[in-house]
């Protein structure tokens, strides 16, 4: 019972924090300088890791697709398979995982350290709202940058698939791209965008919440960081399933030709 009560209280605190951050970001947004720093930190500095993830995933997908499908005469669908997988599923989820490791963990560790060394109390004591100064800029930056990074990662995946299919397996370049206009539609782009946007918000709010709730010195910061990464991964996987079901249902309402 005690554990359940603790969980429900934490969930309540988390939802309250998210609502406050939404409210602050809309009503009294933080200064542009703070947002710009976070956009650079989240977006520009994540480009290398997101590129490698997208490129290597696309290459593996193409290699597997070509190898598995060529003896069935379906090798021509390699480009379509890679693009569809990257846009709808692998791009959003793998980018979210990489951002959790690179950005989410850093956010949690930084806020956790600030918490245990009383720096967050010092902010409050100087009449500066920690949610406005520390959380809102990260929240806005992640909401903008995770979808952009996902598009970039997916594009790198398509490029990686192209390199493998064309340069390694000798596929004609036009064959790789030929089926795309017919089978890739706005719904695929919308689906990937919605997923990446939600994943970005989950990562930043969970990491900030766990950071702000850190207790117990350096060991507490370590525990909070590990904990936030595990919760982020779990939340992304569960949310991915629910979003897939919801988005598929929305297809028949909004996108059916």
């Amino acid at each position, binding site marked *: 019972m005690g554990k359940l009560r603790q969980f429900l209280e934490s969930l309540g605190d988390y939802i309250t924090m998210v609502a406050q951050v939404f409210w602050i970001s809309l009503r009294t947004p933080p200064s542009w300088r703070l947002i710009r720093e976070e956009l650079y930190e989240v977006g520009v500095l994540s480009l290398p890791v997101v590129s490698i993830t997208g490129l290597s995933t696309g290459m593996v997908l193409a290699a597997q697709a070509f190898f598995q499908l060529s003896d069935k005469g379906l090798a021509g669908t390699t480009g379509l398979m890679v693009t569809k997988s990257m846009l709808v599923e692998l791009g959003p989820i793998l980018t979210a995982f990489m951002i959790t490791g690179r950005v989410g963990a850093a956010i949690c560790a930084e806020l956790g*350290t600030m918490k245990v060394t009383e*720096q967050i*109390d*010092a902010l*409050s*004591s*100087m009449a500066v*709202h920690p949610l406005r100064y520390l959380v809102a800029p990260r929240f806005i930056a992640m909401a903008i940058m995770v979808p952009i990074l996902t598009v970039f990662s997916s594009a790198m995946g398509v490029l990686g698939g192209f390199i493998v299919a064309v340069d390694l397996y000798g596929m004609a370049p036009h064959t790789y791209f030929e089926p795309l206009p017919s089978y890739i539609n706005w719904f695929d782009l919308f689906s990937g965008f919605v997923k990446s946007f939600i994943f970005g918000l989950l990562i930043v709010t969970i990491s900030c919440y766990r950071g702000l709730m850190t207790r117990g010195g350096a060991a507490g910061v370590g525990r909070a960081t590990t904990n936030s990464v595990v919760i982020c991964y779990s939340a992304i996987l569960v949310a991915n399933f629910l979003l897939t079901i919801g988005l598929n249902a929305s297809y028949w309402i909004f996108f059916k030709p």
Partner: protein
Amino acid sequence: MPATGSSLNLKPKAEEKGKDAIIVHNLWKSYLGQPPVLKGLSLSVPQGKTLIILGKSGVGKSVTLRQILGLEKPDEGHIEVDGIRITDLTRNKLYEIMSQFGMLFQSSALFDSMTVGENVAFYLHQHGDPKTKERIPESEVQMRVERALSKVGLSGYNKKMPSELSGGQKRRAALARLIIYEPKILLYDEPTTGLDPITAMQINELIKKTQEELQATAIVVTHDINSALEIGDLFALHHDGKIEHMDEKMEFIRSDNPLIRDFLSNAMIDEKYTLSMKGKGKGRE
């Protein structure tokens, strides 16, 4: 009785000298699954005076400060600052009040991603001029930063990072961060803990000088009795979640209260104060 809608300006008026600037009434606080830390704590501090809260470690002295600063809400009871019941205020109203508070934290709490100069300038960058709330040109900010740092003996340290400072220097830099916005209520959490006696004495001198310059009302939480005797006007013993006894300095150290006698007898009290205690047979002389 104070009204939450009254003015949020805490500047002391001449006729208010001697009035209680801080009133804490029947404060109760407990944390999930633990016995109460504060059990009906009450105290008051007159305008411009310095109250020392003494007590053993872990009795809830710092919790009391956190309640007064508004960092935590009490379970019961209320706190009035300059006639405004801050425990009833919304978060936004509380932040208006908090801009006139200053707290020196036990860990100094300097922002470790900023230089010393940026730490000291932080309030001015966030709120502008403490009096007019208008933006200040950067050259003026830097001038004020240099002035605040020179007051605490850290001239030329503004480009250093907090990690490059010693414990005493960190405490001084944190004090400069307070001085720059001239708060009217100052709270000190163990300001000399962990410092060598000479550095502790220097910090005490700085606290005394700050009090004189700002004419601020202050609460100092400490278990360092000699530092307390140097800087305090009023003394209170925090025991078992309550204020056991509160009095003027000399009356406090001469008190017959057994808990005070017990606390003082275990402290290495400076000779100039032990003379006042002679006849009581107290203090490790």
